[in-house]
Structure formats: structure tokens, C-alpha cells
């Protein structure tokens, strides 16, 4: 069946460019999460949506990071004025249960900032 999809799978950006990463969650999943995974590390929480409401953005590392989910389905993570330290894999996950549902992850977008 259809899982979580993310695009692009790979993105190379020059320092200072803006990037937009897209996530298509599993159909009907109300909860959507973004994580950042640096090389050799475990994923780290960035932000969480329940439907279109962004309920937690405590993990966003700076105000250059912005996420939205305007219609409660597809989400976009935007990074403005990218820096080299932004290079990482960005993972999206979705869940059907906002309380304690299992999070199902997409394949990730690997971002390399030169």
C-alpha cells in the first residue's frame, strides 16, 4: 500500500539558497511529524502537526526553518538562507492516532548545502 512519500529525495543547495521539502503522508493520517537526522545520529524532532494545526515546533533549530500543512494533508518544510550545518536527512512521518499512534516514516530527503 501507499506509504509516506517525500520529494525531492536529494537536494543540493548553495549556501544562502532557500529550499522546500515536501511530504505526502499516508492518506487519512491526522498527525504529521518532521525530524532531522544528521550523519551518524538518530533522528531529532523538529515539529508536529495535527491536521493543519502546528501543535509543537519546539525542535525547529532557528527561525530560518518553517513548516506548514495548510489543508491538513501535504506538508512542506522550508529552510531559508541555508547553512552548511543544515546538511542532513529530513524525515517525515505520519500517524493515524494523535495520542500514541505508531509513526510511519518516509524515505527522507537528503539535503547537502555547499
Amino acid at each position, binding site marked *: 500500500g501507499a506509504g509516506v512519500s517525500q520529494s525531492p529525495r536529494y537536494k543540493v543547495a548553495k549556501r544562502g539558497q532557500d529550499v522546500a521539502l515536501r511530504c505526502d503522508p499516508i492518506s487519512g493520517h491526522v498527525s504529521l511529524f518532521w525530524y532531522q537526522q544528521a550523519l551518524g545520529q*538518530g533522528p531529532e524532532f523538529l515539529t508536529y502537526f495535527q491536521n493543519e494545526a502546528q501543535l509543537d515546533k519546539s525542535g525547529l533549530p532557528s527561525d530560518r526553518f518553517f513548516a506548514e500543512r495548510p489543508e491538513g494533508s501535504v506538508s512542506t518544510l522550508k529552510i531559508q538562507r541555508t547553512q552548511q550545518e543544515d546538511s542532513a536527512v529530513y524525515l517525515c512521518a505520519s500517524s493515524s492516532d494523535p495520542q500514541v499512534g*505508531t509513526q510511519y516514516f518516509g524515505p527522507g530527503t537528503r539535503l547537502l548545502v555547499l
Partner: protein
Amino acid sequence: AQSVAQPEDQVNVAEGNPLTVKCTYSVSGNPYLFWYVQYPNRGLQFLLKYITGDNLVKGSYGFEAEFNKSQTSFHLKKPSALVSDSALYFCAVSGVLTGFQKLVFGTGTRLLVSP
């Protein structure tokens, strides 16, 4: 603060032998515990979770994990390893302080199963 420790960077086991991947956690209140597996260039795949109830949890691909509250551990086990089990394994915890939706991950353990 909530945290997860995976003390082994790599675990080596021969095919057919039992395997254990260790995980300990620190959390206030009752934990929700998860194991995920990551294959190269792919996202995380859910293996199993402990929410409440029986301390022994069975999951996908023959994996199981035992919740031990006194030792704050949630070790992943499999009776007979396969070469195809070779991958990166992550333990994760959520709890009341950070919100049950936010997973805190360990740094991962690479499992290498030799033929």
C-alpha cells in the same frame, strides 16, 4: 529530560545465532518505547512498540523486545538471526513531559549478521 542510550555502536552475530540489541531509557512517568530499523537510503521502518500490558512485545520479522521497568531497559531480541537483518536499529521513547507524540531516539546500533 527524556533520553535513550544504545551502548553498542555495532553488534556482530553469526547467522542462526540469537541476537540482542540493547536499549536503556530515562523518562519521567510511564514510557512509550519503540524500535525502528533503517536500511541504507531508506526511511525508518517500525518493528514494535510497548505502550502498556505484557512486558514481552512481539513485532515484525520475528523480533521481540522485553520491557524491564526496574532496569529501565527495552532490549531488542531475535532467536535466530538472518543475514538480511543486517541494518541500523534505533530505539526511541516518548512520555508525558515531551508529549507522547514526540519521539526521542538513540544514536543507533548497527547490526551485522555474518553468513
